[in-house]
């Protein structure tokens, strides 16, 4: 019997959603053990459907940038969780050889033009990528992912305007999780109809329910068809940040009732229910899938823990093209000034 295509897709999405959440849970464990590099770790639990739905609609060759809460987006793109986890741990086997970490992970092979730790910092890069794609007529699209915090940054509007003016194959995706660090959106933004802002600049715009991965996917796919023809678009994916801003943030600025209600906006729970109700999987089969993913992410965690640290002299690598330039160490300067010989 041939499986219903919707079933296939549902199971694929379910696995991806579970992978994102499980990855975040493992990386959170790594943090608590002191195994992540850096004091900051931003989890995307509660925002999985935005990552998986939009990525499902993207094609090979498309470029994208993400924000500081972008693990799930990169994972949904096909990233290797081992190399991701290693990068977040600051290890040399990571995507950026331990130079970037959670907030600067990138992979040119998968079109990941970089996660960015400046709110809105990566948005304008997709304008440039879109320009490249337009000039090369390669049919690719460039997608910027960012949070609701970036909706109040000026660069977003410079980017929207130029994309529409130049008819670039660019899509802006706002994963709205209701909070910019500890400030709820309604305390940061005078208006909340973000689609209207985008429409003002000549973009196609829509708002979707971030608990429904199919809705995210279908709307993205539909938009991207026009994006590739030079009609830039804006998509707002409404979700809720289940946890604090960073791993150690206990969210004292929001009340427990709100959190309890917010965490009911769970794309994974909804899709699982749907899959079971349709009879595509039994509960036990769902559990098996979850178990498989846990094993995958356990292995990624172990891989990161067992990977080696970069060697100290690598700090001078990759500031410039090694063919043209390399920084000189402070120690060298001191020894040169004092005529100290090596040793």
């Amino acid at each position, binding site marked *: 019997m041939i499986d219903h295509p919707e079933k296939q897709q549902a199971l694929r999405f379910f696995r991806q959603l579970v992978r994102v959440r499980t990855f975040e849970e493992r990386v959170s464990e790594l943090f608590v053990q002191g195994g992540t590099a850096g004091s900051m770790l931003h989890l995307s639990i509660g925002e999985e459907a935005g990552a998986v739905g939009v990525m499902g609609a993207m094609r090979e060759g498309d470029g994208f940038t993400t924000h500081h809460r972008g693990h799930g987006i990169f994972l949904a793109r096909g990233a290797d969780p081992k190399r991701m986890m290693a990068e977040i741990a600051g290890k040399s086997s990571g995507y950026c050889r331990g*130079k970037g970490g959670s907030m600067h992970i990138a992979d040119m092979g998968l079109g990941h033009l970089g996660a960015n730790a400046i709110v809105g910092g990566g948005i304008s890069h997709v*304008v440039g990528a879109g320009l490249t794609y337009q000039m090369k007529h390669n049919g690719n699209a*460039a997608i910027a992912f960012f949070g609701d915090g970036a909706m109040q940054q000026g*660069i977003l509007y410079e980017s929207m*305007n130029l994309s529409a003016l130049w008819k670039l194959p660019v899509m802006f995706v706002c994963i709205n999780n209701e909070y910019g660090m500890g400030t709820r959106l309604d305390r940061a933004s005078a208006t909340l109809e973000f689609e209207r802002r985008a429409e003002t600049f000549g973009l196609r715009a829509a708002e979707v329910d971030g608990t429904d991965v199919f809705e995210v996917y279908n709307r993205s796919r539909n938009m991207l068809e026009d994006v590739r023809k030079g009609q830039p678009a804006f998509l707002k994916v409404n979700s809720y940040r289940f946890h604090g801003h960073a791993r150690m943030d206990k969210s004292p600025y929001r009340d427990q009732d709100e959190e309890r209600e917010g965490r009911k906006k769970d794309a994974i729970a909804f899709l699982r229910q749907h899959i079971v109700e349709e009879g595509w999987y039994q509960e036990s089969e769902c559990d098996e899938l979850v178990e498989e993913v846990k094993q995958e992410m356990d292995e990624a965690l172990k891989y990161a823990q067992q990977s080696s640290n970069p060697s100290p002299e690598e700090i001078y690598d990759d500031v*410039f*093209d090694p063919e043209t330039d390399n920084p000189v160490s402070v120690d060298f300067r001191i020894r040169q000034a004092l005529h100290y010989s090596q040793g």
Partner: protein
Amino acid sequence: MAETTYREALRLALTESMRSDPSIIILGEEVGKYGGAYGVTKGMLEEFGDARIRDTPISEEVIVGAAVGAAMTGLRPVAELMYIDFVTLAMDQLVNQAAKIRYMFGGQIGVPMVLRSQGGTGRSGAAQHSQSLEAWMMHTPGLHLAMPSTVTDAYHLLKHSLTLNDPVVFLEHKGLYTLKGTLEPDKALPWGKAEVRRQGGDCTLVSYSRMIHLCMDAAETLSKEGISVEVIDLRTLHPLDMQTVSESVSRTGRAMVVTEDCLTAGVSAELSARIMEEAFDFLEEPVVRLSGEDIPIPVSPQLEQGSVPGVERIMSTVKMLLRR
């Protein structure tokens, strides 16, 4: 070769580079139809068309940010900021993005873009159109920084900038666009090499961009008084050719740094420290720094002139240094 101007030499460098490298595009305010606020890109729209010569809105941050994204995906953009003073609006893209992407991403990719702009005094542009902000760029690891003083350097440094795989901040001087000179097409020095513009034995003047011409004028006049001044044109501030400087100071024993940017924590501070570190044994006197005053640039031409070094000040300071 016939005489040409600094402006024409820049245009020639851009034009030749664009003819041989189809990935080069130019984007910025008024670069196309208007021909550039200072006329550098005049006529290029007609040759290359509006896909490659792109007029932008007045949105400095996305001009630089789009250049970063384009550079990461296969183009080689030349982003023009009309005045370097406007780089404040694009500092995130220049400093946090362009300069750091190669490093943050573990060497996966460089950002081969050129940020062209111009700075300096001389046209009564006042406080927001006359600054010399090169110290900010020099203080940012990951950026090349070129500041040509001559027609020949304008041409070669810009052509070379368009072959590098990392971001180059290319700073012209608004007072040099009409400078005439003979363009020497074969005189391409290596990237990062300083040039001794005038040889002398009594002291070394270290400078770059427009101040080179003032130093040369001062040196010429001083030579008639029997004072022999060596003038070194750094050409690029990153890379910084301290070898040429140290070699000179080892002969003259006296060094004076002349810059148009303001004194405190400016380029002259770095140069002075480097000379002290690398040529301490040869110094007869402390390194002297003649730089712009620590003030915003005023509009009155008389006040503006007083805010940056002039030929007379250079001469009198050299004499102080030489105890004459």
